[in-house]
């Protein structure tokens, strides 16, 4: 029986004010096992990003439970929550804005090492350099700042930071969407390799079903804040059951085969 790492039940979040009244999350329930990748797809406004932020407790939901290793995350005190944060980390869509422009890359990666006391002070620098190398970057990048490295390298830095606290789950919120196509494939391979080596679970949020399918074991389709379909990635994408799923797949550009008009 695969161990259940994350269990989400009945998560709901409504945004009101300024004339808006929209259910960003509506009774969302799902689970992720250790070492598994759950992909989340859906049109814009379907609630994917809100899900990521609620899961990370950047935004408080109106209702629902978040259980990590059986522990109720919503019931944690702020201090305990901060300590537990090491087990779930996030890679944001835009790495440039996800890093303090004044902090060096090395310092940014050492922050989680320090905060979660992963290793003692003397070992921190070495561990930070090792993390950079694991994501395919050179250790001398640690003295640079995030805007001084290329786009593809930035997301690797973000991944290194996310891995520093030895998380059990990493949420990737459209993390590959802004990357060049040729870089995307390499990042996907890196993520899969790390998963095999560390047993990390991923919540992979994306708007391109083809990319999500590459790395996900199972996939959830969201629309208007609800999960409308879940299942094995191949099964869902080859024969979607939900209207949303069908629309997403139908929208993927098909290459006209030579000979047809």
């Amino acid at each position, binding site marked *: 029986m695969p161990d259940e790492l994350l269990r989400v039940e009945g998560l709901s979040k409504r945004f009101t004010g300024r004339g808006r009244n929209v259910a960003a999350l509506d009774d969302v329930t799902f689970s992720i096992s250790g070492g598994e990748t759950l992909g989340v797809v859906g049109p814009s406004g379907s609630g994917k990003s809100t899900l990521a932020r609620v899961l990370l407790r950047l935004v408080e939901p109106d209702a629902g439970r978040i259980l990590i290793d059986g522990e109720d995350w919503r019931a944690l005190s702020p201090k305990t929550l901060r300590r537990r944060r090491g087990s779930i980390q996030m890679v944001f869509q835009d790495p440039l804005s*996800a890093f303090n422009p004044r902090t060096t890359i090395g310092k940014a990666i050492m922050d989680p090492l320090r*905060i979660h006391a992963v290793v003692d002070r003397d070992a921190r620098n070495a561990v930070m350099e090792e993390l950079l190398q694991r994501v395919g970057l050179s250790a001398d990048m640690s003295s640079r700042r995030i805007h001084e490295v290329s786009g593809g390298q930035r997301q690797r830095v973000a991944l290194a930071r996310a891995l520093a606290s030895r998380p059990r789950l990493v949420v990737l919120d459209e993390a590959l969407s802004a990357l060049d196509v040729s870089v995307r494939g390499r990042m996907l391979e890196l993520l899969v390799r790390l998963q095999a080596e560390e047993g990390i679970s991923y919540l992979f949020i994306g708007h391109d079903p083809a990319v999500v399918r590459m790395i996900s074991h199972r996939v959830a389709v969201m629309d208007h804040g609800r999960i409308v379909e879940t299942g094995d990635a191949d099964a869902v994408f080859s024969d979607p059951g939900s209207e949303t799923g069908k629309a997403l797949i139908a929208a993927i550009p098909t290459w006209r085969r030579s000979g047809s008009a």
Partner: protein
Amino acid sequence: MKPLLRRFASSPEGVAGALILLLLAFAAVLAPMILPGDPAAIVGRPLLPPFADASFPLGTDQLGRDVLTRLVYGSQASLTVGFSSAVVAIVVGTLVGTVAGLTGGLVDEGLMRVVDAFQIVPGFLLALAFVSVAGPSLAVIVLAIGLGAWTGPARLARAEVLSIRERDYVAAARVVGMHPAEIAFREVLPNALPPVLSLVSVIVAAAVLIEAALSFLGLGDPNSVTWGGMIAEGRNLLRSAPFLSIIPGLGLVSAVVGVYLFGEGLVEGLSIRGRRL
């Protein structure tokens, strides 16, 4: 620190401003050494014009005191007041603005109403009122000017903080598990500061001028020589001995210009430019 200095050095205005200020600072600090003597001492014939007598290069005032000595000693008071007030204004303003921006809610509302209250009163009048009540010493003057000038930095800091709060790197810091206090001081404040620091030149310039005006009105520190005081004393002799007011006036102008140029260079040096993709 080094890249900051390098960027600063690449701005000609900043370097020019720094040179002017360094010159003034040297003069102020080294005053007792290069011009020993009491600026209040009567040393020669009164109203000697400048460049007339080698021992009094800038002439003497109506009491026979050496203008050059008074000018140099006067820079001490003016510059001290100018910079100290700016420091007070920026420190107080930034703290208040940051607390308001980060806390939000009633605290934010309350603090902003306090800012409104201080902003309604023109800075000079506030300083005037304060000095009349508390007495004209340099410390009181610094405090008085600072009280008038902190509202600008407060509003600016708050606006910056409100914007920075929503940035992904602040969210990332929360996700990493950083303590809120550390987020405030390491992630938010250093990034909110540069635009606020660009107000330095304006505040210092205004402070120097307000101090001069207070001295001009006779509300300055009677025990120190200040440029404003010199201008005030020369007021009655503007037609016969204009140099008595013009010379300290030039001192004021160079201080203000120097601060302004330095401020430009500071903004240049502090801004982190993103790479052009």
